[in-house]
């Protein structure tokens, strides 16, 4: 029997980037807001101070900042005819946990999606014809356009102090930036970070091959910055401990370094940490959310009533909470009907490692930041003609080498023994003179009929609720895309002067043990049609109008970029819809 807490205007489930942005926006509106977070409170000085945040064993190898699978996990299978098994240690992606969520341990690669990404189905069909797309591909338009999201991308970049070089200022292509990006209303708030040697060399080689390289947009500060909320960040020290780590130097944009100092001073905001929301409660009509129920670490169950429920956890948990709360029709891959769990996607990552003459090249790979790098965008989205290639999608590629950390940075040429004296000698010979991008090719992952989320029929969590089951595999379209992009990428590394380049193509089947990115997307997708989307263009549930599900769970398919910039833009977009439309007239914002 749960105990009832005093009513709030808004309850937020999950307190990462999206939860923080929504809380900031809605408390500014004067609403009483409570955020409920499964993990602990986290703060720079107490959780990852610079005295020990650069500990690869603790944070990278032993996963200090992430959800512990013994608290909850997912089951996984490649194909619908297989039996899924629980994941017992994280591999392909890293579910965040705790205040700040993934915003604590991301690399801060802060991209915008292409204008065509938001109208993908329409765009590709018009350009190549419907028959060009695989028959089981279920890509959709988003229901929102780049032009509509532009002001919200801009707000996030200025909140974060994103460092970068504009490529398209109000339609004018800018030298040194990404010429393929959508028009931006103003430059990045900070200049791009200076690039280390290997990154610079990649840019030079790419330029000589006729590409237009540009520095990756970065939430690592190129200089001291004060954001519009008055919160201050310091210049990045290029320590090379960024992704998987919290930043002890106040140099990486995160909820802690951009929003929380202001938010926690507000009297109309509270947060409950170490509390796991187990369901969204509906009123007897089933058409209005009454609030949520959560369980604290003592096992006590609490009911938090609220007028508006914002679900803003990690994508896969958003979908799970909706399914467990009985909201929205579960997706059925056999009929293609239903929406909850539909269009689950990830990313298609690969690499090419270059080995250089160590008497001529010393790259000092440990001088790096999370999103340092020179990139090209010629092969992203539909920036090139896919006609001759027989696949759709693409990705950016670049020398984005974010670290030279000792445990993992042991690149050796193919053919080297895996251990022993010869291996050690090869590590010594190559450590300083190899180019090993973390995610050299950052490809899209489009959606398919048989890649989806549903409730596992066998495995349960500690509350006896079904675990989330992921059914996911690579399709030929993505593998073809990856082969093509990896070859182009390897050509650039070769042109840098490598004596040997090892290509590491992404190959099927989808492997849950090898890290790709943490960019799980979809499951509660946005769109224009309630039969094929779970939320409308404002991230409002089609079925329960006082419920908004915000995050990468809303992506109908994943583009060839890191998703955080778009996730945050959607959060500001949804918050604006609540502030400017919903509060004036609470109810359905889009009549389908």
């Amino acid at each position, binding site marked *: 029997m749960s105990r009832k807490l005093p009513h709030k205007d808004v309850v937020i489930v999950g307190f990462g980037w999206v939860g923080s942005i929504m809380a900031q926006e809605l408390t500014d509106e004067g609403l009483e807001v409570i955020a409920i977070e499964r993990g602990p409170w986290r703060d720079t*000085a107490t959780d990852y*101070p610079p005295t020990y945040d650069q500990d690869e064993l603790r944070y990278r190898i032993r996963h200090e900042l992430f959800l512990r699978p013994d608290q909850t996990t997912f089951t996984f299978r490649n194909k619908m005819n297989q039996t899924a098994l629980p994941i017992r240690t994280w591999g392909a992606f890293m579910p965040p946990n705790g205040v700040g969520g993934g915003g604590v341990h991301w690399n801060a690669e802060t991209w915008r999606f292409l204008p065509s990404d938001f109208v993908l189905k329409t765009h590709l069909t018009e350009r190549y014809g419907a028959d060009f797309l695989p028959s089981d591909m279920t890509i959709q338009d988003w229901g929102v356009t780049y032009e509509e999201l532009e002001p919200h991308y801009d707000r996030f970049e200025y909140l974060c102090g994103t460092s970068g070089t504009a490529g398209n200022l109000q339609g004018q292509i800018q030298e040194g930036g990404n010429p393929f990006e959508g028009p931006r209303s103003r430059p990045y708030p900070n200049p791009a970070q200076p690039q280390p040697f290997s990154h610079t060399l990649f840019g030079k080689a790419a330029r000589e091959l006729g590409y237009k390289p540009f520095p990756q947009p970065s939430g690592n500060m190129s200089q001291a910055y004060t954001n519009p909320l008055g919160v*201050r960040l310091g210049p990045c020290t290029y320590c090379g401990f960024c992704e998987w780590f919290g930043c002890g130097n106040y140099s990486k944009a995160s909820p802690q370094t951009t929003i929380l100092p202001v938010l926690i001073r507000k009297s109309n905001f509270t947060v409950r940490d170490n509390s796991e929301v187990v369901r969204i409660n509906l009123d007897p009509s089933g058409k209005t959310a009454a609030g949520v129920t959560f369980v604290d670490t003592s096992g006590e169950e609490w009911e938090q009533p609220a007028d508006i429920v914002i679900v803003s956890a990690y994508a896969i948990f958003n979908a799970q909470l909706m399914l467990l709360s009985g909201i929205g029709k579960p997706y059925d891959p056999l009929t293609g009907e239903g929406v909850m769990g539909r269009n689950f996607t990830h990313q298609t990552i690969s690499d090419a490692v270059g080995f250089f003459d160590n008497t001529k090249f010393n790259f000092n790979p440990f001088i790096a930041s999370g999103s340092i790098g020179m990139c090209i965008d010629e092969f992203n989205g539909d920036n090139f003609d896919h006609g001759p290639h027989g696949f759709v999608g693409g990705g950016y590629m670049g020398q984005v080498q974010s670290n030279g950390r000792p445990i993992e940075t042991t690149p050796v040429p193919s053919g080297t023994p895996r251990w022993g004296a010869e291996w050690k000698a090869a590590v010594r010979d190559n450590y300083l003179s190899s180019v090993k991008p973390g995610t050299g090719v950052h490809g899209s992952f489009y959606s398919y009929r048989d890649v989806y989320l549903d409730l596992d029929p066998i495995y349960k969590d500690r509350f006896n609720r079904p675990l989330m089951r992921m059914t996911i595999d690579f399709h030929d379209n993505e593998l073809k895309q990856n082969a093509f992009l990896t070859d182009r990428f390897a050509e650039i590394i070769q042109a840098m002067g490598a004596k040997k380049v090892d290509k590491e193509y992404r190959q099927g089947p989808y492997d849950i043990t090898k890290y790709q990115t943490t960019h799980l997307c979809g499951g509660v997708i946005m769109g224009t049609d309630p039969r094929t989307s779970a939320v409308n263009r404002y991230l409002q549930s089609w079925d329960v109008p006082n419920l908004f599900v915000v995050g990468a769970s809303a992506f109908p398919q994943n583009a060839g970029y890191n998703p955080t910039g778009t996730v945050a833009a959607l959060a500001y977009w949804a918050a604006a819809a609540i502030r400017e439309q919903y509060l004036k007239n609470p109810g359905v914002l889009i009549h389908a």
Partner: protein
Amino acid sequence: MPRHSGASGVALSTLVALAFCTSVSPRAAEKQDAQDFTQIERGRYLTTAADCAACHTMPDQKQPFAGGRPIETPFGVIVAPNITPDRETGIGTWTDDEFDAALRQGKRPDGSRLYPAMPYPAYTKMSREDVQDIRAYLATIAPVHNQVEPNQLPFPFSVRAAMMAWDALYFQEGEFRPDATKSATWNRGAYLVQGPGHCASCHTPKTVLGGDKTEQAFQGGVIQGWFAPDLTNDKATGLGSWSAEDIVAYLGTGHNASTAATGLMAEVVERSTSKMTKADLEAIAAYLKDQPAAGHTATAVQATDPLMVAGGAIYHDVCSACHAIDGTGVPHLIPSLAASPSVHSTDPTTLVRVTLSGARSVATDQEPTAPAMPAFAWQFNDEQIAAVLTYVRNSWGSAAPAVTAHDVETKRVELKTRGEH
């Protein structure tokens, strides 16, 4: 109502008594007007400027002015009393004269003496009118039934009569007298610093009996395990390199380009100075900038000294990422070790403490970031901390006495006693 710790019947009868007595209490005879908005507003502001809450409100701020906060003195602990209008446990039955005598003469209603942890040696500079305004404001806040025994000092300090001798030695009663040769702004600043602000309580060094060493006014003093730095215009240890604007920014926001408030001063900024008017902060700055320099001199420890060599190595390895190779830090975020007075204080207490235990700077509406220094006690031994602190005190054109391993050890033991590391 849990805030009334006694039986609810007692609390209720107190309230009834209070309501009943308003027409017959002595206060009514003294022309107090509970609706005198102007007086109450002035009193609220002066209560903030005098930072009464610093001692009389517990840090959780749940029961304003209900007392109970232990105030650590060199002689033992004094617990701040309840100054809410509660008639049994607060000051609800005090007369105007009794209130005035407490603040300006250090006398309790029974005629016995207050301990100077209550800064009556400073409040004596206030006018009777200002003191009555504070009283008028305090009369409007919620009465809290909270019995406090202030005197928890060990014998012989527990004998209040001893304070008569102390007062004779150190207490000079008397209102602030403006200096006609100075501007109105200067005089306002002098009044705030010497009177309600009671800056000397911490920033003027004390004799063994706890009296002000008046000949060293504002040259810095040890308090509750911190060193309240030199407020004179000494270039190295004091405010000599700060502009008036730097002082205003520091008091108003807790931060300026070179340093940030932490420890006890963070509380002062949070509860008091950040809530004062800009004009008053400018007046304080004008007065402080007009004070002479302490004139501390120190010979720099040679760069070749083994302590400096070791300290420099640690500094470059561990400190320079945030504080920069040249010690300048990041303005408004990471203090400048080259320019921060606390780094070069004659007494390195604060520097050692912050290095061992870490410290969080204050958050204010204007500067919400509140960056923190991490603790290093677990990472370095006494010799290493002594070396790196000697290095930062004697680099970038600065000179200050070396920090010894013994200094660090003493502080480490003290912090353990306090349960802070």
